[in-house]
């Protein structure tokens, strides 16, 4: 198996190309995706290859998602680009009341194979409305799947699996991830939509994370492992709906200690759900308080000094590790 170094943006572009080639009912639309190939080049050249199956749209986010539902119910396989996930609130009713429920409400008559690409996370110095991680809202919505890639390879693999899924999938891709490089298998890459991955094996402590922030976690882990000469287990959730409880529980039963770390705000974040699962299902194995790492409870300020103080990073992960490894 050969692997090739690629940036995330290109890896997901390959996923789009391969799936559009494979299935003529796959098409994609979004704001400003033709002329510059998307904000991060993730749609570069796609219009040339597939013509009218790649479309620029008006600034009409409810229409984009709502029409995606209709397109899917009618037999299409739309991929909808949300431009910035910061505006996903505009489409929440379409997601909650149509996309997630159509299959169930209609007793399985129709299905909604729709992929929503939603670039999220901090966009440095873009302030409060362009730097959000809102994935936690989607943990509690039955009927949708929600994945969050962390590398070019699983970005490609999850996107391909999402496009092939018969269910609506939200694909949160961190804005800072698009330019990140990683090795991608040269052959077909399909990453299962509902499985977490142990990306680093260890016994001393479990850290659950996902997405771009996984990089921050691994940085902290490297430092801590050297210092404490103990091994830390790191789990990449990859999917937050559903959450792969089995993998998490198995790990904490072994390590007895748990940190959950994400770029999103700590309060009410995905970390809360993971902590609650473990406090309920593996309580007897846990030896220390469960620590959550996340951003402070504030809109993101513009000023770089404030921005840094509100966001979280490997430093906070390291501090949490220190607390549990003493």
């Amino acid at each position, binding site marked *: 198996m050969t692997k090739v170094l690629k940036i995330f943006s290109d890896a997901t572009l390959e996923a789009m190309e391969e799936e559009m080639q494979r299935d*003529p*009912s796959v*098409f994609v639309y979004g704001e400003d995706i033709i002329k510059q190939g998307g904000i991060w080049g993730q749609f570069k050249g796609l219009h040339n290859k597939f013509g*009218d*199956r790649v*479309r620029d*749209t*008006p600034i*009409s986010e*409810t*229409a984009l*998602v*709502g*029409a*995606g*539902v*209709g*397109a*899917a*119910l*009618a*037999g*299409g396989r*739309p991929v909808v680009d949300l431009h910035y996930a910061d505006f996903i609130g505009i489409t929440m*009713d*379409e997601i909650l*009341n*149509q996309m997630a429920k*159509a*299959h*169930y*409400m*209609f*007793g*399985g*008559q*129709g*299905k*909604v*194979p729709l992929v929503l690409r939603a670039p999220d996370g901090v966009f440095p110095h873009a302030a409060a409305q362009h730097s959000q991680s809102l994935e936690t809202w989607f943990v509690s919505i*039955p*009927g949708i*799947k929600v994945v969050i890639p962390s590398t070019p390879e699983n970005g490609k693999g999850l996107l391909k699996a999402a496009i*092939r*899924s*018969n*269910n609506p999938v939200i694909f949160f891709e961190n804005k800072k991830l698009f330019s990140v490089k990683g090795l991608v298998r040269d052959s077909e890459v399909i990453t299962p939509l509902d499985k977490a991955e142990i990306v680093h094996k260890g016994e001393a402590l479990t850290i659950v994370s996902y997405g771009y922030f996984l990089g921050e976690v691994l940085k902290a882990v490297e430092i801590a492992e050297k210092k404490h000469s103990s091994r830390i287990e790191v789990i990449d959730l990859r999917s937050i709906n559903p959450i792969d409880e089995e993998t998490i529980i198995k790990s904490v039963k072994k390590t007895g200690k748990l940190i959950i770390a994400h770029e999103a705000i700590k309060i009410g974040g995905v970390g809360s759900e993971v902590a609650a699962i473990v406090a309920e299902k593996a309580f007897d194995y846990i030896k220390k308080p469960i620590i959550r790492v996340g951003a402070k409870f504030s809109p993101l300020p513009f000023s770089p000094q404030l921005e840094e103080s509100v966001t979280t990073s490997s430093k906070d992960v390291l501090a949490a590790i220190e607390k549990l490894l003493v």
Partner: protein
Amino acid sequence: MTLNKDKLIDIYYNMLRIRRFEETVKKKHGKQIIGPAHLYIGEEAVATGVCSNLLREDLVTSTHRGHGHTLAKGANLRKAFAELYGKETGYCKGRGGSMHLAAFDVGMLGANGVVGGGFNIATGAALTQQILNKKNVVVCFFGDGASNRGTFHEAVNLAALWNLPVIYVCENNGWASTTNSLDSTAVVNIADRARGYGIKGITVDGNDVFAVYNAAQKLIKAARNGDGPAILEAKTYRIEGHFLGDPQKYRTASEVEEWKLNNDPIERFLKAIRATGEVSEPEIENVKRRIEDELEDAVQFAERSIVPTPEDALEDVYAKEAAR
């Protein structure tokens, strides 16, 4: 009116079938049928006039007041009734009920509890037709109240821009729940909003099934030929309360009576065809009988059908993943 006899009988059948369905729902409501139910009585000419121009493969999206659209599109009465009864044999296996009735077998993509929720769905369904090079047309039914949702604006603009085969049919029945259309909508004829999107907008008497039929025919034909979307507004009236049980404090009994007595779409239709003698009385009686038989059969089917198994409640939350 240049409709042949079969078509006339068909139209009569569809209007009366809706009317009798709704009357039956009303009779059973609070007993075998529970939950919110929004009846279509008085508006039968709209769904019928429009859907009589559609093929089975054509698609419609509906509203919270969806029984009429479902039947006009040709839905099976047994499965429709069973759904309102919450039975496993219903269209939605009892998961949907009145507000989420859907009949995908005849292209009816679902009632919708979200007012204005259908605009985008219809638009997307039309987009799939275009992308996959199909000739089907999509009809989006919506109310006067729904016309003030932002989804209207975004959907119609997108459809106009992309020249999608979708007709937005406004059932302007004068009221949105307790609110008069003129107290919620800053324009008298909702079809006039079409100009803001450079498309056709036509307003017709929605209780004249011929007027609806003719206007719909023109617009649907055009859409099928690639001429893009349009708005068709049918002025009509909701005879029943907003929902079954509505105290209706917002309007006078005489307002309702006036429409009921002098503007019933089915009576108007009968008067018109009787005037020309195109359909004979026995033929009319025959339609009535057919419908009563169909109804009785459907009600019985619904009543003796089994209720869903509680253990299966979580089935269909997710669609099965095929190996693709």
